[in-house]
């Protein structure tokens, strides 16, 4: 099955991001396809990596990047949410796996998916 995943929460403000990561990893292991993860609202902050990660664990940003590379999952940052939160000048370079996309694109992907699961 094709599943679109939507992430609304920041990587440290909520542990739901970890739950979403587990969901996508399980989907991939079960032979399903997650064509895209759409980061909305404070989910935008998942694109950034911290200098420390409690307990030596992989940070959410890196875990998303791995999923993006290994499973050709597009990591899409809602452009309206991104524009409210950052100026292109004030941040260095985003990890190349993440790119901006509009809400209409999210719906267009949803249309081609069997399920939409939001966190």
């Amino acid at each position, binding site marked *: *099955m094709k599943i679109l995943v939507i992430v609304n929460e920041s990587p440290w403000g909520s*542990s739901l991001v970890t*739950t979403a990561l*587990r969901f996508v990893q*399980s989907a991939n292991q079960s032979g399903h396809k997650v064509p895209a993860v759409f980061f909305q609202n404070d989910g935008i902050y998942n694109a950034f990596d911290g200098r420390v990660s409690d307990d030596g664990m992989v940070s959410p940003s890196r875990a998303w990047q791995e999923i993006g590379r290994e499973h050709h999952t597009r990591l899409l940052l809602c452009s309206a949410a991104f524009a409210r939160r950052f100026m292109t000048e004030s941040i260095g370079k985003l990890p190349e796996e993440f790119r901006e996309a509009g809400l209409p694109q999210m719906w267009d992907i949803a249309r081609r998916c069997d399920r*939409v699961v939001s966190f």
Partner: protein
Amino acid sequence: MKGILHQLLSADPRAVKDCLSFVKPGDELLLINAGVHLLNGPNSILAAHEQPGCEFRVFALETDVKARGLQSRAEQRALRLLDDQQWLEHVCGCQQVLSWR
């Protein structure tokens, strides 16, 4: 027709109330993340679940129950726990998935 899988991602009573107002017979309810705090009941979900003839099924994610140290609660409540693979089966087995926070 297949039912809807309602994912309860928090124990906020407002989320519980709104969720229950959309649950229909045949739907499934899955406690995820902070939603597993509902195992500490009393609340309307456990009350409904524990009533004979309840028309929807209630599950909780095993990993989240363990991460919060609520294993013995889940046993007492006789709630079925799902591992992450089973979670995916329920997502695909239902008609659509709604997440309540």
